[in-house]
């Protein structure tokens, strides 16, 4: 766009220098606050008239420590992700994948699924855009599975709350499931199970928009916009998740946890998936629960299966996709992805 002078000046916000100074200052403040969370939460807990080592005291301490921690992590991750993703777009991703019919289209699609910004409300136009550009159905699925499954919010919180080892395992297996499930689905020749109107659709005209040039400040603004939007939307799920985590941490006896979610109980893995799919929350809400479960001795495989099915498979998403996929295809999709999650769960319970 050409720059013109506007007589009616709309408020444009801060000047550029304020961004170059403000963002590093905010990062330093973030770092300092993050470092003071333990003393702060211990102090705040001591204000409650309950013994620190009682059930209630443990639950309160967990809650007070986790709420600022998760919100800080969430803000940081969403900001950084928002800035990084401003270099990607569904249009660019489609252009990359459209020419890619080789086997490594699947891992490539999964990687782009993690980096491409898209909200679940536009998954239908995105799906059609991909399929009509000749991207194979299986590759499209790899993209759609990886997006939520190995999203940066989930990984970052897992890293911050549970540790890098488990975050890495989650990344590797989540990515593998997205790749392999897409490949398997692609091999099954499922095109006939798309809704009729999608199959009949002639390739829509590819949007020939002029590429918008973004300055670094534009990208930083996108990051802040994302924080406002996402943190504004998920904070309630975060509080609910931490509340449940705190209750588990404070009140659930370890013997009971071992009996229900321990490695000996083979049925706990499928049970975790069955419980996880209809649970509608997001990564930010489920990871505090995961933290409390692991802490109480739940088996890693069972917990991974639970977390993956909550994050990657959600009923509202299926209902949105119902516009383009027949029920039969949705069922096959669910079955294949669940199989991958079950395999991961059993593997880790068996290994550890």
């Amino acid at each position, binding site marked *: *766009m*050409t720059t*013109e002078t*506007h007589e*009616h000046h*709309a408020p*444009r916000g801060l000047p550029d220098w304020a961004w170059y100074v403000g963002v590093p200052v905010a990062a330093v403040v973030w770092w300092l606050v993050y470092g003071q969370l333990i003393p702060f939460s211990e102090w705040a807990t001591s204000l409650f008239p309950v013994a620190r080592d009682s059930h209630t005291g443990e639950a309160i301490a967990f809650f007070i420590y986790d709420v600022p921690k998760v919100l800080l992590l969430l803000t940081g991750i969403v900001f950084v992700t928002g800035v990084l993703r401003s270099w990607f*777009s*569904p*249009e660019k991703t*489609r252009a990359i994948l459209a020419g890619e019919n080789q086997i490594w289209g699947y891992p490539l699609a999964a990687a782009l699924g993690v980096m491409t*910004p*898209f*909200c679940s*409300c*536009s998954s*239908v*136009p*995105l799906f*059609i*855009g*991909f399929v*009509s550009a000749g991207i194979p159905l299986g590759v499209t699925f790899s993209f759609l599975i990886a997006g939520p499954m190995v999203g940066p919010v989930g990984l970052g919180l897992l890293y911050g709350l549970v540790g890098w080892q488990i975050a890495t395992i989650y990344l590797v297996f989540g990515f593998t499931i997205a790749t392999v499930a897409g490949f398997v689905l692609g091999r099954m020749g499922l095109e006939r199970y798309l809704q009729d*109107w999608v199959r009949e*659709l002639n390739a*829509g*005209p*590819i*949007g*020939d*928009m*002029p590429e*918008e040039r973004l300055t670094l400040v*534009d990208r930083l603004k*996108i990051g802040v*916009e994302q924080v406002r*939007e996402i943190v504004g939307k998920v904070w309630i799920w975060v509080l609910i998740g931490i509340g449940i985590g705190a209750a588990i941490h404070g009140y659930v006896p370890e013997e009971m946890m071992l009996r229900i979610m321990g490695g000996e109980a083979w049925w706990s893995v499928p049970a975790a998936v069955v419980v996880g799919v209809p649970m509608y929350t997001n990564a930010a809400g489920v990871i505090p629960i995961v933290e409390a479960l692991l802490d109480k001795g739940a088996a890693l495989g069972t917990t991974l299966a639970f977390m993956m099915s909550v994050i990657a498979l959600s009923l509202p998403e299926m209902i949105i996709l119902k*516009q*383009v996929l027949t029920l039969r295809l949705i069922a096959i999709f669910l079955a294949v992805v669940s199989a991958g999650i079950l395999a991961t769960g059993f593997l880790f319970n068996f290994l550890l």
Partner: protein
Amino acid sequence: MKTVKVYGPGCKRCETTETMVRETASRLGIDVTVEKVTDAKSIAMAGVMSTPGISVDGKLIHSGGLPDAGKLEGWLRA
């Protein structure tokens, strides 16, 4: 008279975009009709993959996220 179409299934950002278009146009005194396209099929057929999308007189000029206020003015004036 310009015809502006806002593509989006009805999420919050799509509604905000529509409001932005209307307000900007009336502030600049530009005569526009704003049409909202909410049907997934029509959105996809227009080549929009990430919503909200905006087209002016049949030409797609933006997709994904809220439009920048300054750029929106430019599109409406052009």
